[in-house]
């Protein structure tokens, strides 16, 4: 079920009313309702894949309980291995089998061998990368003794199948969420109001910007040889806004929805396009995944404790794995590599402050220096997005060839000027509101900045824009495919 669908607009009030009116307590009943809601929400796409979700959750629940009861190091490691194999095995099969089979076959063909490797017609279960990582964080935390395993399967299954973040994150940590599922929830009207605002903000970014943006990158990256350098440049910049608004829009809606039910999810985006360097960008972009990799991969690999060589190695590993996580294709791996190459110089040679000081503190506008840094960072990120959006590695190279040719200086054919105008209007509104709220949680947190009539005017204006300018096609979220 999509957040931006009529189905969900019917589903949400029903679950909300049942949750707060019919089953306000005990907390276990509310959790049962949340599991049922998660099943309906996920099963709306394909109910058969619910079995995978519950298999993953079941294995991790049992493994964690055993871990709590076991002191022996070898046995604990064995239990953790069971969880890792079950989770990553499923993910590997559904997401990566064909990629590795294909690559293996092509690699051997280049060497003159012709192995008979069959690919399978596998459907990628939506959200599998997200819930697998989330569930895995539970067993790892219990293994590290950072979290006590819950004895209540209802609590754990409610955590894994929590519908606001089930399909596309944020990838929550068990130690942050499981305690929230264990304690009674209190309805806080301020949280709910702000949650609603955040949902509206996410919808605006998705419907007005991301969906209106989609057609142009689809055209250009779908047939890169047919378009000029300037058209590739425009498509790349448009895609940068599309993917940001699509994914951060989803995350905003997820956070807002969770708050309606009394939960506090971790922040996933912190206005990444206002970053002043690539390192800051990665602290602000898809925070839940990046911190997951930091906590469960980078630090166990040694982090930055072993000198610069270790930093380079571990950084490369993290970004390459991140690329592979996003998709089973070489262009995603190339994207990870480019991200690492733009990130590493900062880690190795920069003496910048960590964390960075606030951006333009007490000022309406950034300084020229800050603006230059922001634009340079945006350009580097866009360069990496080419690899991400291209349909293959050779096609990504065509995009760069086109951008390096004289055709970069020709006027681009924008095809649908109306969609571009709507997109430009949406992006302008988004940048202004997010800039104003850059120290806050989302772009529509206007308490104290505007009086009530102005705020209401803003909300109605945004709703009006969505009614008038949502494209007739579109809807799916890009990150569902991961």
């Amino acid at each position: 079920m999509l957040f931006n669908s009529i189905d969900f607009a019917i589903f949400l009030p029903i679950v909300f009313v049942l949750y707060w009116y019919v089953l306000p307590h005990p907390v276990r009943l509310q959790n049962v309702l949340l599991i049922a809601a998660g099943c309906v929400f996920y099963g709306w796409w394909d109910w058969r894949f619910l079995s995978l979700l519950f298999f993953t959750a079941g294995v991790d629940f049992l493994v964690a309980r055993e871990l709590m009861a076991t002191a022996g190091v070898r046995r604990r490691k064995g239990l953790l291995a069971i969880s890792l194999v079950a989770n990553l095995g499923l993910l590997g099969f559904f997401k990566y089998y064909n990629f590795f089979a294909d690559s293996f076959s092509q690699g051997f063909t280049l060497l003159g061998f012709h192995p008979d490797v069959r690919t399978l017609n596998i459907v990628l279960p939506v959200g599998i990368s997200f819930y697998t990582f989330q569930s895995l964080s539970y067993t790892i935390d219990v293994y590290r003794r950072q979290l006590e395993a819950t004895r209540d399967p209802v609590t754990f299954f409610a955590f894994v199948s929590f519908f606001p973040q089930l399909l596309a994150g944020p990838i929550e940590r068990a130690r942050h969420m499981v305690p929230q599922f264990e304690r009674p929830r209190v309805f806080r009207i301020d949280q709910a109001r702000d949650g609603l605002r955040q949902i509206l903000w996410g919808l605006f970014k998705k419907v007005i910007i991301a969906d209106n943006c989609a057609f142009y990158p689809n055209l250009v990256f779908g047939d890169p040889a047919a378009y000029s350098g300037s058209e590739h440049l425009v498509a790349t910049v448009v895609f940068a806004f599309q993917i940001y608004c699509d994914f951060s829009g989803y995350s905003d809606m997820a956070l807002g929805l969770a708050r309606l039910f009394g939960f506090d999810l971790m922040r996933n985006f912190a206005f990444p396009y206002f970053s002043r360097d690539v390192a800051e960008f990665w602290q602000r972009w898809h925070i839940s995944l990046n911190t997951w990799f930091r906590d469960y991969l980078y630090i166990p690999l040694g982090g930055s404790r072993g000198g610069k060589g270790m930093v380079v190695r571990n950084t490369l590993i993290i970004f390459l794995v991140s690329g592979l996580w996003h998709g089973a294709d070489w262009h995603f791996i190339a994207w990870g590599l480019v991200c690492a190459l733009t990130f590493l110089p900062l880690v190795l040679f920069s003496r910048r402050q960590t964390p960075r000081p606030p951006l333009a503190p007490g000022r309406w506008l950034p300084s020229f220096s800050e603006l230059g840094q922001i634009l340079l960072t945006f350009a580097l990120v866009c360069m990496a997005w080419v690899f991400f959006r291209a349909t293959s590695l050779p096609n990504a190279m065509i995009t760069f060839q086109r951008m390096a040719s004289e055709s970069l200086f020709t006027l681009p054919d924008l095809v649908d000027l109306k969609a571009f105008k709507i997109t430009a209007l949406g992006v302008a509104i988004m940048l202004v509101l997010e800039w104003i709220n850059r120290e806050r949680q989302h772009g529509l947190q206007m308490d104290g900045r505007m009086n009530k009539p102005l705020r209401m005017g803003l909300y109605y204006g945004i709703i009006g824009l969505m009614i008038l300018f949502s494209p007739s096609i579109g809807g799916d979220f890009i990150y569902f495919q991961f």
Partner: protein
Amino acid sequence: MVNRFLKEVILLCLPILAGVALYVFHYRDTFPAPRVSDNLSLNEKLRFYKATGPMPLDVIAVGSSMTLNNLNSRAVLEHFGPVRYVNFGTWGQGLANTRDMVLALQARTGARTVLVCTNLMEFSSELPSLPLDTGQVTRYVWKDAEVVAYVRTHQVAYYLRNMEANVIRRRDAANYEFLGFDAHGGATLDVPPEQRAPARWDKQPPGPHDMVDSLYGVAEDLGRELAARQVRLIWLHSPFRHGIMNDALRSRVRQHTERLRAALVPLGHAVVDADDQPWPDEEYSDYSHLNGPGAYRFTAACLSDLPTPGP
């Protein structure tokens, strides 16, 4: 607390719902048909037929705007006599969509004669086919209640956006998107010279490099399938206005119709054109769409050329 929150949400939504309700009420007569396909004119046509069309049918016409605008219903009935006839033509329909629609509609309506009107455009890359689920089309026309169809195709923005535009589409024959259907589903354009869109008037037919060879295979597929069903296919080629014709184009058109004849006539079908007659600019709305008198003359001329009359 929850009550207060819900009250606030309802109060927040009320003005929006009231505004939408007022807007819908104002344009209630031109509320778009259920969005069973991505082609608005097909949706409107299906609703028209669902509401008014007879069953079974004797003759159906299916195709793009050439079929919708250039096939004149009066001329068709004068030729075939008192038959049950519906023109399912819609603008923006590619040839693969036409094939799928003909096969789906013929199977349902039992029509024994199928008319398809095209020119070079349908065989070029300029008129691509859209994703079309004919199962959804037939389910809407013959199974689902109207309300059910709206629930299935609940894209609020689509309906709201097209309500106002539909006022012109339904009423103004000088609008190129005119959808004011006659009793048989045809829509005759009537664009006076002063309202002609220059870009459409001066538009050139697709060039040799725009033609898609495989689309002749689509036409042949259709012909073969209809022959197997013992259904007669009459393929009409619609002429371009005199002002854009030249020897090269004339030769290309001749090659095109000959190729169609070679594919369809051996299957027992007919391919007819009216290229032996003059087609002066005054009879056109743009480079290829005829006005009412032109459409009548074209349809009558083509059908009078048929080797054997009647279904």
